[in-house]
Structure formats: structure tokens, C-alpha cells
């Protein structure tokens, strides 16, 4: 397998563009703070977005992201280049988010809770009306719609949710998803098909209105 891959363009304008992944990995293994700053500039937002859709509680995505970063920092020396850096990082993020979700569920089962506890429900950010062509009503409707889709996604069972998020939200290809999850490409296809079916059923009313 060719270990040298292009990892794309830096998102942060201030970060220098390192097009050679092997060089970047070498810098990371050498403990270069600049290389890690570059890595953060590229991956912190996609990872945070991925984790936000994977964990049950939105507020815990920051903690999970910090754990992911810690694992990347401590594990970069063991990175052998058999997969791309991107899929290696995403694999850590998906595993960490899944573990966190499992432990959160265990905690939820054992902890007493109040029926008035707002944290049990998905928090929907208040829509912000910015003027322009959108009316306050359309902004609110859009926010409601997003909340409904997010709720359906969060309620999706673990194996399907990971595949759907990686494909639909992060835009990874089938073979990249297979690498991240450590499963065969056929498994990715079947999980994606099943996940989409479930989502389509749950959002049937909304999708009917859309089409």
C-alpha cells in the first residue's frame, strides 16, 4: 500500500500546508508542537462534528474530543502507516465516542433521574434570526426540522449510526468507512442501507412533505 497520501488543504489559513502525510507523521512522531497545531487546525472541527453526532449528550462532545486528542498524542508513535492518518484518527474518534455512549447508558441505567430533568432530552439551540430573506418562522421551522433529524439519528442503533454519520455527514467513502470501523466494505453497504431504511421510516412524515 502506498503510504504517502495527500491529506488535503489546511482549513486554518495561519497553518502551513503540509501536503506530504509521511512528513507530517514524522513531525508528529518527533513531538513537533507545530505539527500538532496543524493537525488540530485540520481535524478539530470535523472530529468535533463527528463526535457531536455520535454521543448522546451534546455537552460531552468537548470532553470526548479532548480524550481523542490525548489518544492521538500518545498513540502517534504506534501509527504504522498501514491506513491513512485520517482514517486512523477517525477510528480513534468513533471508538472513543462509542465507548463514551456505552458508559453514558450504563450510568443512565444506574442513576436515579427526575422526570423534570432537561438533560435527558436533546438540547436544541434557540434559532437565531439573522434577517434577510428568511422569516423568523422559517428559521424556527428549519431548527425544528434539524432537531427532529438529529433526534432520529441519535436514536439510531450504534453500528448504523456510525456508518450513516461517517457517510452522510463526514462524506467518507465506503472503503474509508470500512477502514475506520475495521469491517468489510460489504458490511458498510448493508449497515448503511439498513440505517437509511430506519431513518426513512422514522422521518417518513417529514420526508413526504419534502418530496
Amino acid at each position: 500500500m502506498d503510504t504517502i497520501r495527500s491529506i488535503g488543504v489546511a482549513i486554518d489559513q495561519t497553518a502551513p500546508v503540509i501536503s506530504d502525510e509521511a512528513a507530517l507523521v514524522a513531525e508528529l512522531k518527533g513531538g513537533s508542537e507545530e505539527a500538532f497545531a496543524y493537525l488540530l487546525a485540520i481535524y478539530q472541527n470535523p472530529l468535533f462534528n463527528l463526535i457531536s453526532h455520535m454521543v448522546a449528550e451534546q455537552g460531552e462532545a468537548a470532553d470526548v474530543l479532548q480524550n481523542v486528542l490525548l489518544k492521538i498524542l500518545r498513540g502517534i508513535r504506534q501509527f504504522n502507516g498501514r491506513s491513512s492518518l485520517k482514517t486512523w484518527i477517525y477510528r480513534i474518534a468513533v471508538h472513543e465516542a462509542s465507548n463514551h455512549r456505552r458508559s453514558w447508558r450504563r450510568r443512565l441505567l444506574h442513576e436515579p433521574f427526575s422526570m423534570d430533568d432537561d438533560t435527558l432530552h436533546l438540547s436544541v439551540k434557540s434559532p437565531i434570526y439573522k434577517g434577510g430573506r428568511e422569516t423568523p418562522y422559517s428559521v424556527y421551522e428549519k431548527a425544528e426540522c434539524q432537531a427532529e433529524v438529529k433526534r432520529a439519528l441519535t436514536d439510531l442503533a450504534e453500528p448504523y449510526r456510525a456508518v450513516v454519520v461517517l457517510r452522510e455527514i463526514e462524506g467518507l467513502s465506503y472503503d474509508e468507512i470500512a477502514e475506520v470501523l475495521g469491517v468489510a466494505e460489504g458490511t458498510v453497504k448493508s449497515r448503511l442501507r439498513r440505517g437509511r431504511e430506519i431513518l426513512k421510516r422514522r422521518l417518513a412524515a417529514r420526508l413526504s412533505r419534502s418530496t
Partner: protein
Amino acid sequence: MIFETCSEIRDHFSEYVDGVCAAEAIHSIRYHLSHCVPCTSELERYEALRTELRCLSRQQVSSDLALRLRVQVSQELHRNIFQRVLVHLENFFRPVLFPSVAGSLLALICIALMLGSEAPQASSVPDIPFVTPPRVQVLPSVNLDAGAQPLVLVTYVNAQGRVTSYKIISGQQTLGVIQQLDQMMYYSLFQPATSFGQPTSGQVVLSFRTITVRG
């Protein structure tokens, strides 16, 4: 690959919308969709679902979290105790180094300026000493025969600079020497001694030695 039922077709919609179906399957699905309204509606719902998912707002890392991540990276990379101490020291001293150096320099400059203004001004008038001894102004040349021993005498000078008396401390005290000394003292003139700038009487010690010049 030719699909015959709607169920078979719908099983491949997921890959079809992602564009990863084989060419034959794509042809077969397109042919089926051209005459099957329920499957076309089903595919539209697939497309709508994809749109809804892709329109979900992307979560961005807040500036506070971004800063925490940078700090975490820095701390993790400087886990070595020595390096951590260095980083802590640097972080501690860097903000205070410039202000403290600038402050110290400013304080030194202020102190120097204050001391400079407090110092007494140099007077243009020369200082007057409290007491000055009499000084020789005119001493007539006399061929004094003082012998081998030096002749030392104390001379008493009045406020007008004239010698009032003298006393030989050491040396020959012959009559000839005394006559020569009397003559010399009579014609001598001294700058009188002063006390607080006023001329007054004083004493001056004179020493004479015979110098033989050959040739």
C-alpha cells in the same frame, strides 16, 4: 444484472444514490424507475433523507475549547518534568520580564534625575579656605654660608607680610650667619597668613642648604 421486482430494486437504492452501483445495475434501476411511480417516490425519499442529513448544522469548536486543546497538546508534549518546569518558568517570567526590566530602568532614571536636582550647584566664586599659612613673595639672594648642615628657622610674619622675628631651629648659629639672616629677613616680603579671608600674623619654616656647583 437485471432486477425484476420493486423489492430488488429498492434494495440497491442506498448504493445507487451514492453512485457506487455497477453500470449494469444502474441501467436496470433507471429502466425500472422510468415506468414505476412508487419506486420513483421511494428514491425521492432517499434523496430527501440525504439532503436532510447533509443540511444538519456542522458543529464548530468554540474558541475556548480550541484553546484548551492547544494547552492540552502543549502539556502532553512537555510531560518531562524538567521541560514542564522550564515551560512554567518561561510562562511566568515572560509576561513580567519586560515590565520589570522597563520598570527598573525607569526607576533608576527617576532616581538619577532626583539626585541630580538635589545636588548643590557648583559656585562660580572660588572657595575661601578657613586658614592659610604665610607664603614667600620676595626673598633676597644672599650668599649664605650655612656650612654643611642645613639651616632651619621659624619665621614670624605679621599681617603686613613683614618678618617680625625668627628663630634658628637647627644649623650653624655663627655671627656671620646671623647678620646675613638679619639682612635677608629685613628685605624679605611674605604674603601674610589669612584667617577666614582676613590677613593675620603667622609662622613659616624656612630651610637653607648650601649647594656647591662645580664647573
